[in-house]
């Protein structure tokens, strides 16, 4: 039996759902923590309500990877830490979305082929 292992290049590792949602949310504009939770809930059609523990765990990893950066947002009532995508984060998101697009296309093609039989 052949054992097939899919190897991703280091820069194209598949993203976890919280990470993908955070990167997608930040792709539009920089956001602070609570705005991220709200936007992710809206993005997922109410399916995902991220807890603060999950959110900050993912933010911590993303900061470590250099995919996002933290800055102080001064235009709000009280100063808040906000997050924005870096060029590396934008590239990762692009790679993941391309991968998903490819997979979606393949999935639909197979569904169509099965229906045609």
């Amino acid at each position, binding site marked *: 039996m052949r054992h097939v*292992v*899919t190897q*991703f290049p280091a820069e194209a*590792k*598949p993203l*976890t759902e919280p*990470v993908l949602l955070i990167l997608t949310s930040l792709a539009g504009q920089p956001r*602070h*923590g*609570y705005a991220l*939770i*709200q936007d992710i809930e809206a993005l997922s059609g109410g399916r995902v*309500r*991220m*807890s*603060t*523990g*999950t*959110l*900050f*765990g993912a*933010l*911590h*990893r993303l900061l*470590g990877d250099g995919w996002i950066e933290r800055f102080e947002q001064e235009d709000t009532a009280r100063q*808040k*830490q906000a997050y924005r995508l870096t060029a590396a984060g934008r590239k990762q998101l692009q790679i993941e979305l391309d991968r998903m697009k490819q997979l979606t296309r393949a999935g639909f093609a197979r569904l169509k082929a099965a229906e045609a039989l």
Partner: protein
Amino acid sequence: MRRAYRFCLLLYPRQHRDQFAEEMLGVFEEAFAGRREHRWTWSVRFAFAEVTGVVAGAAEAWLCLKPAPEVRTTPCSNLPQELVAAQQRVDANIAGMVHAIANHQFERARIHSDAERRDRESLRILREKHGLNS
């Protein structure tokens, strides 16, 4: 609720708390205040989700802090070289698996896990060959 959440944050390593605790507390309060008009059942679910998230997040933060187990590079002089090399492969795979899990790279963790199982079996055979199995 705020005090309970602040207490839960003590589960995190100090560096993580210094960096994020105040912000997490602020976000928690905003999230709770934003939905206060809902029924108590919502509050219970919210609290449960938050506590679960904090416990999981803290576990992950500790895992990331813990250095990967060191690969033994100095062979014990009275052990055969092939046995030492096999043990080093096992250790390296365990280190790789822990690191991959900590970084949510589950596919990579599975590869290390499979390799570790194979190497451990080789190690067992070698130990038998050298009469080292107790």
